[in-house]
């Protein structure tokens, strides 16, 4: 495709992604030296998924100027979509194994009932909620991972954009959306196990014989492929006339209207597309995380997504990826108990508590000294090299 020959940053990005993937594979426990533990492989795979979400955020905010503070809701919906299938299939296998010892083989209805009891007893229910109807089919679940976030983004975007809600009002509305969804999922009778969320998602049905060492690297590969494909597709999209138009909308949407473009259709297209991208990213993320609960789509999560893109530099695709990777890995380092605490006599800096302060400080520093973000610094260094 001509996007490779025309766009240097795409070639460089894909090159680095391939090298990184090979590097991690060579150092993995399953296929290499074992220098990278299974849990760290998962962290890296999850980071790639977050990069994918940030890429979507950059398209919608950095290129189209819609500061959505609700895109993590779509990410979470993707996670719940795959989570329902994983949990159903896994629990059903366990139930079958338990019932197999009986004299009379269990009927399908009995298996289904026992599975439901197993999954929902934690919230005091024993029947399948309606939203689990597709959970016994992997294919249908995969369709829903795309369809549910896409449909929510489509309906929400249609209502918001046709009323010409823009700027900070739209941001507040998107925050309200993700908060409402999160509160809805917190309820036990919603049918998604309330605050318990879905767990045991790292156990892939039918793959009991395969260890987590191999499964972790497979998900890492899948995440890398998804990020690579999305990056190329996004670069292609913004290099087309469509890209010129959405950047025009970002800078002066009224002007674009007077040129005869229906701005609402363009915004809705970008909003829905990025919602779907976030859904796919979430569906790859949560099997690696192992658990999803409504806290994941709290309003702060979507704000973090915007912070990553701002730190990385919006309006450049690699900026979003760099921002998400750097900030989320640092976050893992400082909040995961790895960073040594600093003792200052009577006072002690515990990084778990101080990480938000550090992040805030970093955000201020980037805004002051690198207004185009970390991606802008990359531009600066590359240009300097060439000069």
């Amino acid at each position, binding site marked *: 495709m001509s996007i490779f020959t025309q766009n240097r940053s795409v070639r460089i990005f894909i090159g680095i992604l391939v090298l990184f993937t090979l590097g991690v594979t060579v150092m993995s426990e399953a296929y290499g030296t074992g220098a990278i533990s299974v849990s760290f492989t998962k962290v890296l795979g999850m980071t790639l998924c977050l990069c994918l979400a940030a890429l979507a955020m950059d398209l919608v905010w950095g290129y189209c100027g819609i500061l959505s503070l609700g895109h993590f809701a779509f990410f979470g919906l993707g996670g719940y979509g795959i989570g329902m299938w994983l949990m159903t299939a896994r629990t059903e296998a366990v139930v079958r194994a338990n019932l197999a010892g009986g004299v009379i083989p269990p009927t399908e209805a009995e298996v289904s009932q026992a599975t439901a009891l197993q999954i929902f007893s934690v919230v005091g229910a024993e029947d399948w909620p309606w939203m689990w109807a597709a959970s016994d089919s992997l294919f249908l679940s995969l369709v829903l991972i795309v369809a549910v976030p896409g449909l929510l983004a489509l309906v929400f975007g249609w209502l918001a954009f046709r009323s010409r809600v823009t700027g900070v009002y739209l941001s507040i509305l998107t925050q309200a959306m993700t908060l409402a969804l999160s509160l809805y999922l917190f309820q036990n009778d919603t049918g998604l196990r309330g605050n318990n969320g879905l767990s045991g998602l790292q156990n892939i049905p039918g793959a009991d014989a395969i260890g987590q060492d191999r499964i972790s690297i497979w998900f890492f590969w899948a995440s890398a492929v998804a990020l690579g494909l999305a990056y190329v597709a996004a670069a292609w*999209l913004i290099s087309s006339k469509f890209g*010129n138009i959405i950047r025009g909308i970002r*800078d002066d949407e009224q002007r674009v*209207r007077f040129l*005869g*473009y229906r701005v609402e259709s363009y915004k809705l*297209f970008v909003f829905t597309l990025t919602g779907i991208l976030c859904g796919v990213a979430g569906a790859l993320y949560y099997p690696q995380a192992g658990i999803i609960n409504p806290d994941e789509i709290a309003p702060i999560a979507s704000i973090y997504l915007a912070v990553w893109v701002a730190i990385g530099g919006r309006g450049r695709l690699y900026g979003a990826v760099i921002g998400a990777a750097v900030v989320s890995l640092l976050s893992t380092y400082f909040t995961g108990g790895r960073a040594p605490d600093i003792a200052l006599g009577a006072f002690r800096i515990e990084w778990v508590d101080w990480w938000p302060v550090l992040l805030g400080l970093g955000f201020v520093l980037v805004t002051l000294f690198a207004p185009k973000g970390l991606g802008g610094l990359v531009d600066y260094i590359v240009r300097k090299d060439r000069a």
Partner: protein
Amino acid sequence: MSSLLEVQGVSVTFDGFRAINNLSFQIGMPEMRAVIGPNGAGKTTFMDIVTGKTRPDTGSVRWGDLGHSLLSMSEAQIAQAGIGRKFQRPTVFEDQSVHDNLRVALKKPRGPIAAILDRTTDTDRARIAEIAEEIGMAGHLGTRAGILSHGQKQWLEIGMLLAQDPKLLLVDEPAAGMTTEEREHTTALLKRLAETHAVVVVEHDMEFVRRLDCRVTVLHEGAVLAEGSLEHVMADDRVVDVYLGR
């Protein structure tokens, strides 16, 4: 001459202030018309109404032979119907090259899917080159619009208007910030356009209006005060009172 645009009895009020007061206006095709008037006479609001940005409280705005009402159409639909607008303050997409600005304006299908699949054909390339030549930017196609001078941005916006290929051109102060030579070029271009298009020019500069040599409509307090040749309206005492100041 059948009229292309017919505005009848239009009024619009902002917070109790009557910006347009029972205004009627019509223009045929081809025709050139200059609209003059003091600040606050309603010139920009008039353009806003025609292009769909502002909805009038009363009155009708009809378009074309079939007399479609523009009031029920969105800005984008009105633009697609063939009304192009150049703003007073040049508004180009500063972040993008001159070529891309023209490409976005070029008359082609306006839907998102069409935009994704759009390829610059030889015809497009030729048309963009032709417009760039016309606006004196043949050598600047790759330049980022943000670093152009004020006059060049004016030209680029006129170029975008040409690329849009509208039937009616609403041009707000085209000569602002231009050198004498550029003004002459603008005058010639507008006159040439007026041979095949309807052109409405809003202008403050009387010398420029004189050079356009066309019918003049004088607005005052949101209504038409006088209409006719420049000599005719200048001879009107009321016009002299409100516009030339006493």
